[in-house]
């Protein structure tokens, strides 16, 4: 047995060994949990535990995390497959506006939902085709569609807002079931679906393979183009779902709703430990990321910290999360 082999078969110790036993995503997620608990402990300490640790507030944090997560979930798949989609937020805006318009006109939530999902999915499909068929660089192509979708939204709304949706529809955003907000159920559902897709379907394995090394994936007989098309479409679809939840929660739509959500969504994914290079990360991580974001803002409100501090704190949290991965995974892995 050669020395090389000797070295190879030694089980590994320390962080690396722990990571190996937990698996990449498991390990990354562990770090996140630690981060969350850290913030939690700090907050409950500084709020004397009374308001922060209440079930109500925890559900409240989850509900606030859910919107960002829904928007980020599809994007996570795209990034896992080594792509990118800057257009999710303006996609949300446009499909929310259209849905609102349709619901107002017809009074039918179903029709509205159908329009929102149809529009957003189609936009996602277009992104996918731009990347796979036209072979445009994802970042730039979706940057273009970002502007186009936003402009269409402006044009459609003409500066007005559409408000007042049927209560049945509102339940999607504001309802409670067994004392738990509906969006939280949605988040759980999407998390479950996302995990099933990435963990328990061949497609998921293929997505990771493509993200990790597209060339090798192609030479392993994986239909790379079709999978990419699929993830971009999924990203569009999820933008539509997020749009519906947004409408139901806020009960009105204007052409400016999406834009402030883009960077938080991306930040949530990165804080969740998914690598922009693809092949590393998980939907679960994105949940963690979204929760961390919501937690930070919630805490600052509870502590009556001026909202002006929020961007700074979020930026620091992002860098801390990525640096944590750097230290635990080592240079040669894919980070951030």
């Amino acid at each position: 047995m050669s020395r090389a082999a000797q070295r190879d078969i030694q089980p590994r110790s320390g962080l690396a060994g722990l990571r190996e036993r937990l698996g990449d995503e498991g390990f990354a997620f562990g770090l996140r949990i630690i981060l969350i608990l850290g913030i939690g402990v700090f907050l409950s300490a500084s709020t004397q535990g009374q308001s922060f640790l209440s079930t109500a507030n925890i559900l409240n944090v989850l509900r606030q995390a859910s919107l960002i997560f829904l928007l980020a979930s599809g994007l996570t798949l795209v990034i896992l497959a080594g792509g990118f989609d800057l257009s999710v937020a303006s996609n949300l805006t446009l499909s929310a506006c259209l849905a609102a318009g349709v619901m107002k006109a017809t009074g039918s939530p179903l029709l509205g939902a159908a329009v929102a999902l149809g529009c957003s999915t189609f936009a996602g499909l277009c992104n996918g085709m731009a990347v796979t068929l036209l072979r445009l660089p994802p970042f730039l192509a979706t940057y273009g569609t970002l502007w186009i979708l936003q402009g269409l939204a402006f044009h459609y709304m003409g500066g007005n807002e559409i408000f007042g949706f049927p209560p049945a529809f509102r339940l999607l955003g504001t309802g409670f079931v067994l004392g738990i907000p509906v969006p939280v159920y949605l988040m759980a559902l999407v998390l479950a679906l996302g995990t099933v897709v990435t963990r328990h379907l061949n497609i998921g394995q293929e997505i990771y393979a493509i993200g990790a090394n597209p060339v090798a994936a192609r030479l392993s007989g994986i239909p790379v183009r079709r999978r990419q098309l699929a993830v971009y479409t999924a990203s569009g679809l999820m933008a539509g779902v997020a749009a519906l939840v947004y409408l139901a929660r806020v009960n009105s739509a204007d052409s400016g709703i999406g834009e402030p959500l883009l960077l938080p969504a991306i930040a949530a994914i990165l804080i969740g430990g998914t690598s922009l290079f693809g092949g590393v990360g998980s939907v679960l991580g994105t949940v963690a990321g979204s929760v961390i974001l919501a937690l930070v803002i919630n805490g600052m409100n509870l502590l009556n910290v001026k909202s002006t501090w929020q961007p700074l704190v979020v930026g620091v949290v992002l860098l801390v999360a990525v640096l944590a991965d750097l230290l635990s995974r080592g240079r040669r892995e894919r980070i951030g």
Partner: protein
Amino acid sequence: MRTWNTLRLAGIVAAVVAPVLIGAQPAHAANERLAAFYKNQVDPHFGLVRGGVEAVVKQMGAGAVTHYAPTRPNNLAEQLSQIEDVSVKRPDAILFMAVDPRGVVPAIEKVNAAGIPVLNYNDRVAGGKYTTYVGADDFKLGLDTGRYALRAIGGEGLVVIIEGVKGSTTSDQRVAGFNKAIEEFPKIKLLASQPGNFQRLPALQVMENLMQAHPRIDMVLAAADAMALGAVEALEAAGRKTAKVVGINGVPEAIAAIKAGRLLATGEFDGYKIGCVAATAALRGLRGQPVPATIILQGTVIDRSNLGPWDVPMDKRVCPKWEEVAR
């Protein structure tokens, strides 16, 4: 002989020219070109303003109005470019409201230098020369709405303020008004004052978080309807029936909410009226008719008892009579 010919010639010329000159007056009046500025194309309040302006332009038979709003909501750099571009386009008059009261001043001074009449509306700009200011007294609005609200809860209880974008006069003035009102009621306790950036979701989430920190809230004073309605959504979702909410502006949705008893009241900051009056003032100015230097629209507090006039779609709205406002 010669003189006769000359006179005849003059007569003919006069006969030909006179009707032209006479006709020229309305003909000229009929095509003033206005340029109207807005902070963004997102907030329905500005949709109302726009509606008012267009209505007047139609009624008074002016030529046309072009609307300018930054593509990124409240983006100062973009508004500056738009001012500069418009000053090149040289409309007959500019109806102007600023994304930032101070940042735009240099650009406006350029327009002044270019000799284009500028009318300032909706909220005051910190500098530059304006033919007229049309707006409401934001401080007074805050004060009145605040008083109304605090009386409504019997002058005692726990209150939360949701501010607009920090640093905007609109928000600062209104919040100042709120605080003044709170001072007047010793039994009122201010729990928190957090910004909701004039947007719905931020306000909603701030409210959700505040509810966690404060088990009891009796009154929410929001510096704008969008935020008030966000707060309402949050409270309703949490099943907090006791807390009441007031806003400021009087956008259609707020009126609807008052009618439905979800919103207690809103201070009248009627975009439609502002648009009407501003456009009228501008056109009168161009047509050499007298216009006061300042027109402050007296805002009443709109509640269930008096919401009738606002509870109509925009195309049914009527502009206030000039005589009533221009005092």
